[in-house]
């Protein structure tokens, strides 16, 4: 390339110096220096330049044409130069170029040369091109490839192939291809046959044995030579002569000193590399003397000026006398070998260094497992060499086993034996004893090398010290195990997910606690399933999770987590993303902690706090708190609402809040008092208690009852003041109103126009109203002196002596029974006059019903009583007049009795008339009707006569009759009515009652009347209703009693008077008539009080008149 660059520079210079033809010289140099495809390229460029110049010249005129033609001439000359400088065969025909090259390479070895052309017609094709047929078909492509490669690249090639011999057999031959030596120059010379110059020594004894031998060799090997016993060359293969650029004579030409064998130098020395010459020459001389075979390698100088390694061999030939007649030999170009060997050696050295330097133990075993090689490192490690591992009586392998840790020996040996038998790769880890006795972990691998038959030839192994790694791994494993244990032991649920949220791990506790495995919390699409979260929290949790996964921000959330067994517990989950170096999220790690108790406690606490605050706010009092200095720190809500003033709103320093609150709220009249009390309490730590007025939010002052107590810490120091203000305004006002009312009541009682007296439950007077005091003329105080009880003194001194007994008895009765007391009696006034009073007393009882007090009212009714007496008399008179007027009613009653039969009579008469006037007259019916008329008329007459009898007291109707029978009849008559009214008869009379002369109807009337009266009297009586009927003889009288248990008769003297009645619908005639009847019979009728109660009517009838007929 420097040549080309130089040429190019020269060309440019020449062109610019307007000396184009001066360029021809560098171009010629260029042609000389290029080979191969570069030559093609040069030719192509020059040719194109030529053609282009011609075209330009043809197309243009003038100076351009001149220049173009000049250029064309230049290019034509350059082409000619190229052709002259290059070989005559150049450029080769494109098609035959490759095989041409091969042929030129092969030419010297073809049998043509050896066999002198006989029978080798098929070796050379008629046009002179080489034929591939001499090469074994299997090698043809390889040879062609190598040749082509050498030709086109200029890289020397050496390869062997099978060359066909004339007899059809193949012999191995070697093909060498090397630029500048094997190809371009020498071949032509060889082809052209023996040259004069080169074959100058043929004049010598060609028949000399050594020469013949050399020729044989030449025929076999291509290169041969021979020299005589003195070491003088007598034959050299012409090709070799041309190759080294020296003829036989040149070789033998003396250079220095005498004959070669005597130590002189000849021309040969020039063809040997100076470094090798001395050794080669010495050996040759030695061989010449001794007849030993000369085998030497030295660098031979080629004609091209290159030194090439050759191996030269020579053997002596002996004549008949056994004397060395000459030497023949051959030289083999071993340049490539030599170089290869050098490279190999270098490579081997490097490899060996590498093997020794590799930080691993490398070893080799035989197929049966015996160690054959340990690298240096291994030797250093074990402290023994391969040979040293051998022990008497044991194989080297067994010796090696000594170094394996006893724990691993079995495993190692098993694995190794298995591999040795099966031929599999061997890989195991074990501990190996180092030279200092320490065991270190090793990772060992071995691979078998097999021959073509597949048989294991050797084992190559490597053994790597992984002790640190093992320890690290162990530590790592331990650490991981610890970590795992830690994770499993941590009382939290730990999990991780991918950055997309797919769960990748849950710790054991997670599954234990929730019962959910990794699969359970992974939804079918890989997203995290929230099945362990309470349905109510799921939406929020999902939002948090999604947002976290989107933003990559850590999140904390609380939710209720499903536990094994179906319970939900509050759980706090925190998750954070693990990021790689670039900050991208690669994992999410989360931890869930059971905070149920905490949440529950918090809730409970909150609940309690709320309740407390509720309580504080709901308590219908105002609660407040002061700090030890008396500054308010808390007002309850009720208080704030009540006063419309919050803690923060009352005053700012320097004015104290308390002072501000007091002056803002307290009534001006109370402010000083309140302030003073507060200050005193605060100063002395005393409880505070005061009633005062405070202004409510609506501006109204209301009475408050304030209390405060200090709260002290353990040391007794006041920590807080707790205060309570209670609105007692209503109470205060109520009390006021009560007092007012009591005063009013007292005034009322005092001023009432009645005498009021209050007495203790035992009747002892405890209060007397003014009216009573004035009436009596003395008060309670005056009574005390008497020495008697107040009650007795009052009664004895006041009550009229006639009434005293009853009053005392009744009052005592009321006191003992608790029944209300009411009585009219006369009471002595202060002036000595007895006046009628009505005293009423009622017991005042407490809730249990016990008598607390007797309240007595005493009214002066003297005037009324007297007026009533007057009125009673007048009313009596009026009543009598009224009853007289009702005689008309009596007559009406009588009329009714009479009208009844009269109506029948009238009706019958009418009927009779109709029967008689009928056509024909119904006499039968008429007669019957008339009979009825008579009967009814009699009946009417009876009624009339009876009424008359009532009033006329006639004795015509009297006859003898048994009084017992009469009574029985009367009882029977009333029996039905008695049953209807629930009254029992109690009848008792003597058996020897006499027969009396009497009007039976009248006496019966009397009895019935009395019985009916008694029944009426008991109509509303509680208790047993018994009507007594009694008759007994008392001397010459029969006494008949009719008793009842009614309320008794109030006016016993008046009831027998006509028209006096106590009944609503009575006429007051009954008893009057009864008495008149009884008296008409000569008896008496009167009334007595019945025992235990009620009234008893008694009448008597005389006996003697009837007893004596």
């Amino acid at each position, binding site marked *: 390339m420097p040549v080309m660059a130089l040429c190019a520079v020269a060309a440019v210079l020449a062109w610019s110096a307007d000396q184009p033809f001066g360029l021809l010289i560098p171009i010629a140099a260029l042609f000389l220096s290029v080979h191969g495809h570069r030559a093609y390229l040069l030719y192509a460029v020059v040719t194109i330049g030529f053609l282009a110049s011609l075209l330009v010249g043809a197309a243009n005129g003038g100076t351009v044409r001149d220049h173009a033609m000049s250029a064309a001439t230049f290019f034509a000359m350059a082409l000619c130069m190229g052709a002259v400088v290059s070989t005559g065969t150049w450029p080769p025909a494109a098609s035959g170029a490759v095989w041409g090259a091969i042929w030129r390479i092969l030419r010297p070895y073809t049998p043509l040369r050896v066999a002198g052309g006989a029978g080798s017609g098929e070796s050379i094709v008629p046009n002179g091109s080489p034929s591939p047929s001499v090469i074994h078909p299997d090698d043809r492509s390889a040879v062609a490839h190598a040749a082509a490669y050498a030709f086109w690249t200029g890289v020397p090639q050496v390869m062997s192939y099978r060359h066909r011999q004339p007899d059809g057999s193949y012999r191995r031959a070697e093909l060498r291809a090397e630029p500048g030596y094997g190809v371009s120059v020498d071949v032509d010379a060889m082809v052209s046959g023996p040259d004069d110059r080169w074959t100058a020594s043929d004049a010598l004894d060609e028949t000399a044995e050594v020469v013949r031998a050399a020729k044989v060799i030449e025929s076999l090997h291509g290169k041969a030579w021979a020299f005589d016993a003195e070491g003088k060359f007598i034959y050299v293969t012409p090709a070799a002569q041309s190759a080294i650029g020296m003829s036989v004579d040149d070789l033998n030409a003396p250079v220095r000193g005498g004959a070669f064998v005597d130590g002189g130098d000849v021309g040969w020395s020039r063809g040997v590399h100076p470094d090798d010459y001395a050794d080669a020459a010495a050996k040759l001389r030695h061989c010449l003397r001794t007849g030993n075979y000369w085998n030497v390698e030295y660098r031979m100088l080629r004609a091209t000026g290159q030194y090439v390694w050759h191996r030269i061999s020579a053997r002596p030939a002996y004549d008949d006398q056994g004397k060395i007649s000459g030497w023949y030999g051959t030289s083999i170009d071993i340049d490539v070998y030599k170089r290869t060997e050098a490279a190999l050696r270098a490579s081997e050295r490097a490899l060996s260094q590498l093997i020794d330097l590799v930080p691993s133990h490398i070893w080799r075993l035989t197929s049966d497992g015996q160690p054959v090689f340990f690298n240096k490192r291994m030797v250093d490690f074990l402290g023994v060499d391969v040979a040293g591992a051998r022990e008497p009586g044991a194989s080297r392998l067994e010796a090696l086993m000594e170094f394996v840790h006893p724990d691993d020996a079995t495993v190692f040996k098993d694995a190794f034996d298995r591999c040795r038998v099966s031929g599999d790769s061997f890989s195991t880890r074990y501990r190996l004893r180092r030279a200092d006795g320490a065991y270190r972990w090793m990772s060992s691998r071995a691979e078998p090398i097999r021959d073509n038959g597949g048989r294991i030839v050797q084992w190559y192994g490597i053994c790597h010290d992984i002790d640190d790694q093992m320890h690290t791994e162990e530590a790592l494993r331990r650490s991981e195990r610890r970590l795992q244990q830690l994770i499993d032991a941590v009382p939290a649920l730990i999990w991780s997910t991918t950055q997309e949220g797919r769960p990748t791990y849950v710790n054991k506790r997670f599954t234990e606690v929730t019962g959910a495995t990794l699969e359970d919390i992974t939804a079918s699409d890989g997203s995290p399933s929230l099945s362990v979260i309470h349905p109510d929290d799921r939406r929020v949790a999902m939002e948090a999770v999604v947002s976290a996964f989107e933003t990559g921000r850590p999140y904390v959330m609380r939710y209720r987590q499903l536990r094994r067994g179906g319970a939900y517990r509050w759980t706090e989950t925190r998750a954070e993303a693990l990021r790689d170096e670039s900050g991208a999220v690669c994992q999410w790690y989360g931890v869930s902690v059971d905070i149920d108790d905490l949440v529950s406690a918090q809730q409970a606490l909150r609940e309690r706090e709320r309740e407390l605050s509720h309580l504080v706010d709901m308590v219908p009092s105002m609660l407040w708190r002061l700090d030890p200095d008396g500054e308010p720190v808390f007002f309850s809500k009720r208080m704030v609402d009540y006063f419309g003033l919050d803690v923060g709103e009352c005053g700012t320093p320097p004015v104290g809040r308390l002072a501000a609150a007091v002056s803002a709220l307290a009534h001006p009249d109370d402010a000083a008092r309140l302030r003073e009390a507060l200050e005193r309490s605060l100063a002395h730590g005393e409880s505070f208690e005061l009633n005062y007025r405070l202004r409510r939010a609506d501006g109204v002052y209301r009475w408050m009852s304030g209390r405060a107590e200090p709260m002290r810490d353990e040391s007794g120091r006041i920590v807080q003041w707790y205060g309570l203000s209670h609105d007692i305004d209503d109470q205060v006002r109520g009390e006021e109103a009560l007092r007012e009312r009591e005063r009013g009541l007292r005034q009322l009682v005092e001023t009432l126009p009645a005498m009021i007296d209050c007495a203790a439950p035992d009747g002892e007077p405890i209060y007397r109203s003014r009216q009573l005091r004035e009436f009596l003329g003395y008060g309670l105080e005056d009574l005390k002196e008497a020495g008697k009880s107040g009650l007795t003194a009052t009664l004895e001194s006041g009550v009229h002596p006639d009434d005293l007994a009853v009053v005392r008895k009744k009052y005592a009765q009321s006191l003992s029974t608790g029944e209300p007391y009411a009585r009219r009696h006369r009471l002595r006034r202060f002036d000595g006059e007895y006046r009628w009073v009505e005293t009423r007393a009622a017991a005042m009882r407490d809730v249990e019903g016990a008598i607390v007090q007797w309240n007595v009212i005493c009214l002066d009714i003297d005037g009324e009583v007297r007026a009533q007496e007057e009125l009673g008399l007048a009313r009596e008179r009026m009543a009598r007049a009224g009853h007289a007027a009702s005689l008309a009613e009596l007559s*009406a*009653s009588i*009329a*009714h009795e009479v*009208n*009844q*039969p*009269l*109506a*029948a*009579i*009238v*009706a*019958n008469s*009418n*009927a009779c008339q*109709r*029967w008689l006037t*009928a056509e024909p007259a*119904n006499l039968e*019916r008429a007669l*019957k*009707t008339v009979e*009825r008329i008579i*009967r*009814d008329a009699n*009946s009417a007459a009876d009624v009339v006569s009876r009424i008359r009898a009532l009033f006329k007291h006639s004795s015509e109707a009297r006859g003898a009759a048994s009084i017992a029978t009469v009574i029985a009849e009367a009882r029977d008559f009333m029996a039905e009515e008695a049953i209807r009214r629930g009254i029992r008869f109690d009848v008792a009379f003597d058996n020897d009652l006499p027969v009396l002369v009497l009007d039976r109807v009248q006496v019966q009337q009397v009895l019935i009347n009395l019985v009916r009266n008694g029944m009426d009297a008991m109509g509303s009586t509680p208790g047993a209703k018994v009507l007594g009927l009694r008759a007994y003889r008392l001397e010459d009288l029969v006494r008949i009693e009719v008793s009842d248990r009614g309320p008794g008769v109030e006016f016993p003297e008046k009831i027998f008077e006509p028209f006096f009645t106590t009944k609503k619908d009575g006429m007051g005639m009954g008893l009057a008539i009864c008495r008149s009847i009884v008296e008409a019979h000569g008896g008496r009728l009167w009334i007595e009080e019945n025992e235990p109660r009620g009234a008893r009517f008694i009448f008597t009838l005389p006996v003697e008149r009837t007893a004596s007929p």
Partner: protein
Amino acid sequence: MTVEDHVIFIVDDDASLREALIDLLESHGLRAVAFGSAGEYVEASKPDVPACLILDVELPDINGLDLQRQIAEGDYPPVVFVTGHGDIPSSVRAIKHGAVDFLTKPFSDGDLMSALRAGLARDRQARAERGELAALRERYATLTTRERDVFPLVISGLLNKQAAAQLEISEVTLQIHRRNVMQKMAAASLADLVRMAEKLNVPVTHSRRAGNT
């Protein structure tokens, strides 16, 4: 006046008067049944023929006037009161409660008979009216619910289209209902139907002028 088409009830505690009255009424050709007390009368089964009741004011178990008030609840025969001592308040009360007459014992044959005749006549008429009302009710019962809705609207005098609008039915439909009502009630004219409605106490609920309720 045949024996079977009427009956006179007598309630009086006086047996002789009962006998006399039965005899008297028989002599007048009137069938009579007598009872001694109000209870007996109430208990007895009574033939379904025009009747009249002679009732004594003073009865052993109950006052005659009270009995009158009690039986006034149902269909009862006209009452002729007889009393031993009549007073004005009782008679006024009796007449107010629909008694035919109030006779004081002893009473004359003529007064009694004229009162009884008046009573029987009144009962006959009442029975006839009851019969007609029963027939009307029977006819009314045959009306459908819709026709009963239409009935008051028609007798209220609403125009057909007003009534139809009220019931939210078409005028033609209303006319059909109206025709059915007339036919079923056997009313010769609208006035006839209005008269029937009055007897049946069908209320006039709408006014044509107001146009609505």
